[in-house]
């Protein structure tokens, strides 16, 4: 379901424009793959966990090298490797109906311990199964455990069915952390848990989170200095994955924030792969994950038309920082629990609708675009009702496109482009009609 994007090569291609922070982000992600590649040689244990509600600070307390399976799948998607992996997994008995992240991951593992970068990616020593907001995660790790015998520790994060975090939900997560998760991680890693070490990491997390929010909210400016969807997947990369809680992440977000502040000062729009974006014509909110196999082509369909995404729900799957959550070193376990419980896909549908409407108002967006992902029922089931509700409440037009995460068979460029062009025309007409009415 989620994410950390980085382009395939570690060298700067001449035909791709990026902010310096984007290059720095890429280095961080590649560094993590190198840590995983050398983990066995350095006698380090390897953990795997999912992005939404991941407990990176906690895993660092046990010196694990940290793998994130969705990130591996999307990296393989961007490198055009996922199609083969998915078909390999289907040949091994996986249904064509199910999540392609799972199949891309299983297909990769079937091919041996080689990761997206071509470097070794060891089979994890422990699977930390926190299935925040996605039932498929549970089956995903059961499948890996079944095939590779990896030890698995469950962290059950209750769903916000009533649109709020009840005290018993938080207590339940904390009890699991204390009595199940931490003892298991101690045993597997051989490292004793030190809560002060956790607090130190969480202090760094909070610093980075503060800067990330500043960057994401910079899109309230006109023109927006960032793209809050395509660009944001670079910005959320470190904090949603193996770097939240590290000093490197804090430095990254300092650099990023300075860059974006400067773009605001200069009145510049976002940097796209083809350089600075031209005139900002449309401001959109996007719901749903991106397509990774044609990521750059997909983005181009927006910036070529002068469309910028000012906010996206996808950039919140790893935490709702813009609604105030910060990791709290004074209450470390309770704060980790709140973090897990608060991720976007753990919200009920009414909360998701409220959030999107709020974004449309606060970011002065022209409308909502839903990118519905075949693989991801957690996001997709109910999106057509979200669309209706948001249109009804905001009066702004909404549109619906369908793609997939990492299965290239489900990205039809012509269809998507047609729909987007029609949508932009609709936005223009609606704007004209509203101007005429005043």
């Amino acid at each position, binding site marked *: 379901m989620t994410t950390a994007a980085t382009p395939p090569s570690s060298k700067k291609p001449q035909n791709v424009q990026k902010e310096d922070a984007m290059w720095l982000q890429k280095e961080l992600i590649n560094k993590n793959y190198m840590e995983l590649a050398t983990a066995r040689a350095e006698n380090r244990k390897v953990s795997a966990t999912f992005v939404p509600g991941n407990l990176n600070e906690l895993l660092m307390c046990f010196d694990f090298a940290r793998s994130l399976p969705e990130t591996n799948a999307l990296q393989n998607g961007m490198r055009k490797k996922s199609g083969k992996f998915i078909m390999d997994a289907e040949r091994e008995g996986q249904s064509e109906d199910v999540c392609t992240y799972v199949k891309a991951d299983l297909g990769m593992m079937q091919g041996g311990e080689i990761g997206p970068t071509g470097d070794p990616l060891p089979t994890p020593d422990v699977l930390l199964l926190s*299935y925040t907001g996605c039932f498929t995660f549970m089956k995903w790790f059961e499948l890996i455990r079944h095939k590779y015998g990896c030890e698995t520790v469950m962290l059950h994060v209750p769903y916000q069915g009533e649109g709020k975090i009840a005290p018993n939900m938080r207590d339940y997560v904390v009890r699991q952390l204390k009595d199940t998760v931490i003892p298991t991680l101690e045993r597997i890693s051989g490292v004793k848990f030190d809560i002060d070490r956790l607090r130190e990491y969480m202090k760094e997390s909070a610093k980075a989170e503060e800067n990330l929010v500043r960057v994401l909210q910079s899109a309230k400016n006109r023109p927006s200095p960032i793209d809050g969807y395509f660009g944001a997947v670079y910005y959320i990369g470190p904090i949603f994955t193996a770097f939240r809680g590290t000093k490197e992440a804090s430095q990254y977000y300092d650099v990023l924030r300075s860059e974006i502040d400067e773009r605001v000062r200069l009145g510049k729009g976002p940097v796209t792969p083809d350089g600075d974006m031209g005139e900002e014509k449309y401001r959109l909110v996007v719901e749903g994950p991106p397509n990774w196999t044609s990521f750059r082509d997909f983005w181009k369909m927006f910036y070529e038309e002068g469309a910028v995404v000012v906010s996206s729900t996808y950039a919140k799957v790893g935490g709702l920082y813009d609604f105030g959550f910060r990791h709290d070193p004074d209450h470390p376990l309770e704060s980790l629990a709140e973090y897990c419980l608060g991720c976007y896909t753990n919200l009920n549908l009414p909360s998701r609708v409220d959030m999107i409407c709020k974004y449309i108002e606060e970011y002065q967006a022209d409308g909502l675009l839903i990118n519905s992902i075949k693989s991801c029922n957690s996001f997709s089931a109910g999106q057509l009702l979200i669309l209706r509700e948001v249109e009804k409440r905001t009066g702004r037009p909404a549109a619906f496109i369908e793609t997939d995460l990492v299965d290239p068979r489900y990205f039809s460029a012509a269809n998507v482009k047609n729909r987007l062009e029609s949508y932009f025309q609709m936005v223009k007409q609606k704007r004209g009609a509203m101007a005429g009415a005043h």
Partner: protein
Amino acid sequence: MKTVPPVNEIVERCQTLFDDLDFNAVKQWKAAAPGRKAIGYMPVYVPRELIHAAGMLSVGILGGGDQLEVIQGDAYYQSYICRIPRSTIELGLTGRLDCLDGMLFPSICDVIRNLSGMWQLMFKDKYVRYIDVPQNYEDAIGGKFYVDEMEILRKDLGELRGKPITDEELNASIAVYNENRKAVRERNAYRAAKPWQAPTSEVYLVLRAGMVLPPEEHTQLMRDYIAATDAVPRQRRDNARIVINGSFCEQPPLNLIKSIEMSGCYIVDDDFMLVTRWLLDEVPANGKPLEELSKAFLHRSASTAAKYDAKREDKGQYLLHQVKSGAAGRVVFAAPSFCDPALLERPMLQDVLAKHKVPYTAFKYAENTGQMAPIREQSGTFADSIKLWSAA
């Protein structure tokens, strides 16, 4: 002495209840006394004892089947989402579920989970609750959470009826459902022993009647069915004994069950309507009711794809037990299209079966699947191969 009606009358009554997409049985039950309320629930499990203790009727909502034309419901879902939520929305939007005062959406998958939020948005005058169940099986951790969740439901239902639900009421309801589960086990045992006397196309309807009848009445109905069918000997065939797996949520059309049987299979166990036998044995009805329900859930409940297997070696054990206890030796995986839990679970179960040398076959269906010939051919070939090549 009570006279048991003939088996065809019992089956006919169950068929009528099954066909009635307007839930007239629920309406009649409500009309029989002033102030009665009914609460709907979706698969795979809710603690129905709490609804019963509130004096309400629990109503299993399993989609619209193959007789409901889905028009509005399709507008709410993409083509790659299973069918049960769209037909359930159709039932709601066409007023067929107006007789329900509330809906419970259990923790089973992302689609049903999100449907709970859709219901909150679309049917604002109804009580709606997502029922989360623990995936941690320690009494002090997952058990505590589950008891807390049930306390909330108990309080809500108490408010809905205007009076708190007492422990005594809950214990009385546990006893009622213990009896119902016992009758379900008797039904299962009878079918496994004499599948020619209790074809699953009938047994299914009798179980399905429990989705709309009060449990006391349903318990009697199941016992009447066994007595009635046992009284009329039927022809025994040389059929292959199989277990069906994967149909725990969206239901197959009745014709699909009949087609499998007609192709030469005796279905001796399945996972239809697991709510009726989720708790595997008697729940003590004289203790702290919610704690007892929690313990039964954590330590003595059925296994299905929506439930986490805490240990790798647990995977497939429940299915193997079904195969063994039903003397089946064969499995037919029949899962709804786009059912993530069932379809992701299937390769693991197949692997376990292969290791135990249990033959299997697999196909997908939708609740409105109309073409049975391919399924009949597949299950028929499977049954024939068993009969021809099996060492047994």
